[in-house]
């Protein structure tokens, strides 16, 4: 009887964490989902569904550096490998863009796949622009005239941050700050 009760309690707890995280993700509370998933990560490092959920919630909330562990552990199924490649591309684009903008490094003769994220679109536009010396850039969307992208550096006391903005009809629709 006691063993049955213990089993019941453990299954309820395990099911609840994933279900709560999924619930948060579906409600678009990405930051909360990312932080909560990161706290319980040591117990679920081998659970690929958990890692994928952590990865997407952290990606959408802007915590790209937290993608490192999911990238390393997502490897056993084709879906997991696809997600690992997706996360690694985005993280690499962020690092390259930051390095290029802050240290004025020219990214020439580079060809990457792209994704549907704001970071990827700005990365491709930045490469196409070919000018790697400025601290701020403004790009127009090729397909939609109402959309303007802004990429600029934000210099603080100890660190320089990179800001990505998407403007639609002169209103900020998306904004991400990376460092």
């Amino acid at each position, binding site marked *: 009887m006691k063993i049955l009760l213990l089993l*019941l309690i453990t299954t309820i707890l395990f*099911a609840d964490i*994933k279900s709560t995280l999924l619930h948060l*993700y579906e409600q678009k509370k990405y930051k909360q989902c990312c932080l909560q998933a990161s706290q319980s990560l040591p117990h679920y490092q081998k659970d690929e*569904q958990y890692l994928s959920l952590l990865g997407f919630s952290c990606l959408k909330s802007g915590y790209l550096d937290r993608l490192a562990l999911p990238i390393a552990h997502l490897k056993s199924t*084709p*879906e997991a490998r*696809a*997600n690992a490649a997706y996360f690694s591309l985005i993280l690499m684009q962020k690092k390259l863009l930051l390095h290029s903008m802050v240290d004025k490094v020219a990214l020439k003769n580079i060809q990457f796949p*792209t994704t549907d994220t704001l970071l990827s679109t700005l990365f491709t536009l930045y490469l196409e622009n070919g000018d790697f010396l400025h601290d701020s850039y403004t790009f127009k969307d090729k397909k939609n005239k109402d959309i303007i992208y802004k990429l600029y550096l934000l210099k603080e006391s100890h660190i320089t941050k990179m800001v990505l903005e998407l403007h639609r009809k002169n209103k900020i629709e998306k904004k991400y700050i990376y460092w």
Partner: protein
Amino acid sequence: MIDILSLERRWYRYKLKSYIPIVIGSTPLLLIGYLIFSFFMTTNTTKQTKTLLPIQHKQQQEQVKKQKNKQVKTEEKMKQKKEQPTLMHLQPSLSFLSTIKKQHFSTKSQQKEKQKILKRKKALSTPSKKVTIVRENTVQDLKDLQKRFHNTQNPALSLFLAKKYYEMNNFKKAYNYALQTNKLDPKIEQSWIVFTKSLFKLHKKQMAIKTLQEYLKQTNSKTAQQLLKQIENGTFQ
């Protein structure tokens, strides 16, 4: 004597040999000159044909020129396209969300089953304890129930009231409430049974038999059949 013939022959050979370098030097010049001449000749002929062609030929040539220009433009575009290759669009896999949902619902159903099993085990293991609820004020309870029925028009409440009044030998009220339940929901068998019993108790035997017969035409209720036999035989009290 001097051999004049041999000397003449030797002189001819000498002359021919003297002409050889001139010939060798002049043949490439002649060839170049011929090529230049032939090139100029072709341009002159084209000019002449242009001046002599009628208007239709001119239009055809213009069309040919346009087609050539188009071809050149398309070739340039192709070159540009080759120079700017399209980027590969990497897409993630979101199938894990549906698997999490399925797992969550399956665990819920498993939990429910386990809970049911536990409850059954508890019921078997523990002795059954009867809890008796003693109502002291039955009249007040019935009044409350009547109020609730008048507010909600719930046939379950009216059926309960009909049964209660029948037990209390208040057959008029039992008949009334059974009638109301039949109006609200004619599919409740128990309300018809209480209705016919209360009719019998109110000394309306024939009416009770008729209602049972009508009810049996629409349904095959065994309890109704038994009750009808009892009333007809006179064994029902």
